[in-house]
């Protein structure tokens, strides 16, 4: 199937600083495609080059096999990471304004229902909460019934409940057959929403694939966790690799049954035992030597 969007050898330099260093990928139509990485990885620069907001230093971007033009502008919906809206306009008026900017736009009422805007429709757009604001910005991204929707860190700063509400909205957009391109530094968000991921660090793609395939490719074990105070063995005695964290011991287990048998044989208390599957954060740590959160801090 022809991808809806293709990026080839995309590069962006700001003086001597290389923000994006020759990345390539293709996005199938109707999928949710994620760019995962810490702040500064080059996700926003990449998505803004595709959106046409930032001029690439080099590389090719193709939308439906053609360089993006006016048709792309009509058919894409964008939610930026940082956006203000006009002062003194209500949520309804902002929706009406943006609806009139497109050749084809959806009716306001169903969009209001879909994005749950009805309770604050007549409030000023600059005086609504963070979660409400993100839902309004999503509604603006959907107002032209786009074929492709760009969401740049859409849940950053939201409380857990608002994030989950937002995830449900994104799933519904995907179910409606739209292509979603999402940047995030939340591994759970990427795992929950994305069919396909590129993992970025310092302007490079370090791996690419579906979340499940990536985890399967890089991890053949599960993690058996115990409180540190309960664990009295060495890795040699256990016969498996272990990772020590502040309070826990994580055993990289090839077989849970065998690991538990070994622990029982050595009379290790199992009251604190937990089994954890590897996450994308573990994958990121394995691939880069630093976690997503460390990358953010740097």
């Amino acid at each position: 199937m022809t991808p809806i969007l293709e990026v080839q050898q995309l590069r962006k330099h700001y003086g001597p600083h290389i923000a994006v260093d020759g990345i390539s990928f293709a996005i199938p139509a109707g999928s949710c495609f994620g760019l995962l990485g810490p702040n500064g990885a080059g996700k926003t620069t990449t998505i803004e080059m595709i959106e046409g907001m930032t001029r690439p230093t080099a590389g090719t971007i193709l939308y439906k096999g053609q360089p993006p033009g006016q048709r792309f502008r009509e058919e894409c919906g964008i939610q930026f990471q940082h956006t203000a809206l006009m002062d003194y306009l209500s949520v309804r008026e902002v929706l009406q304004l943006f609806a009139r900017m497109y050749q084809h736009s959806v009716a306001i009422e169903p969009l209001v229902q879909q994005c749950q805007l009805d309770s604050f429709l007549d409030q000023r757009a600059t005086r609504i909460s963070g979660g409400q604001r993100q839902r309004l910005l999503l509604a603006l991204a959907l107002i032209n019934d786009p074929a492709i929707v760009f969401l740049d860190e859409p849940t950053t700063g939201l409380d857990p409940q608002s994030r989950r509400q937002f995830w449900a909205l994104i799933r519904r957009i995907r179910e409606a057959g739209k292509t979603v391109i999402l940047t995030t530094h939340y591994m759970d968000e990427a795992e929950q929403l994305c069919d396909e991921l590129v993992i970025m660090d310092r302007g490079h793609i370090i791996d690419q694939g579906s979340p499940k395939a990536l985890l399967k490719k890089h991890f053949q074990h599960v993690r058996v966790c115990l409180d540190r105070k309960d664990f009295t063995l060495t890795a040699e005695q256990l016969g498996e690799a272990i990772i020590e964290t502040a309070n826990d011991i994580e055993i990289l287990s090839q077989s849970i049954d065998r690991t538990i048998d070994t622990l029982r044989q050595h009379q290790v208390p199992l009251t604190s035992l937990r089994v954890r599957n590897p996450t994308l954060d573990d994958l990121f740590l394995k691939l880069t030597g630093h976690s997503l959160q460390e990358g953010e801090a740097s």
Partner: protein
Amino acid sequence: MKRLQALQRFFAMLHARNLEFVRDRAALVWALMFPALMILGCAIIFSGNSQRLLTIGYLGTDAAAAQAVMPSLPEGSIEWLAYEDLSLASTRVRYHQLDLLLDPGQQRYWVNPESARGKIAEQLLHANGHTGWQSQWIQGRAVRYVDWALPGILGMNMMFASLFGVGYVVVRYRMNGVLKRLRATPTNAFEFLSSQIVSRLILIMLASTLIFIGCDWLLDFLMLGSYLNLFLVGVLGSMAMISLGLVISSRTDSEEFAGGMLNLCTWPMMFLSEVWFSLDNAPAYVRALAELLPLTHLVAAARSIMLEGAGLVAIQHHLLILAITTVVLTALASMLFRWQRD
């Protein structure tokens, strides 16, 4: 079809900007109150008689020859003004801005028979032994300072409303990402800039008309020309000034820098465009500099219509300069325009 869509986007942005302005109560009150208070203040401050004794003009540049005509008066009791242009000097006599105009070389003078101060000046001339000079009458109603200052104050208000109103809004939109969000739609720079020009123009003309009507009702201004012509001058002058505001705000994302640039443009215009005082006696280079400023042409054209009853032909050079300024600066603003911060 494409044009219809462009018009739809233009009207959408125009409507949104108008709503913003009308709902910003502080800005709205300021836009109406500031010029009205200035005009009323002028009327009150300058309603009394002038402190000067007499103002006498003379043709040519020989000040000593002119002052020798009336040696009997104490030094400093007469304000002497030199004129090279007889028609300009005659206008000053007509509207009581000059009490007497002398031409010592030809031994003739001009006086307004409706001016009491003109009659005193004429008697003083005769008392100094110049009874044989040829006299000519120039009749006309007295122009109070407030009549003279009104076009300047209205023009100044248009200048501030245009430059700061558009300049700050565009810079603020750029800083907070509103422009970037608009850029993500199919709109283009020309549609956005046009909507800003027209929105501001409507608001300025509406406010100026209200101020004019209100102050005219209170102060009964001298208005000899056509209201329609005056409106046209206001439209062209505002558009020229809005275009200047768009050029200033076309690239910067700093409100401080934009504020500095806007002040750099407005202050010279306030002093050199004959808002508060005439440049008749200013050095030639100052008058030449003033000719480069759009406010000079707006005020001069408005003043000609109001005080002299000038028609469009008489002020066509001002209109042409304002129109050219608008076209050139709008094109420049479209070329320089940047949607977002670096």
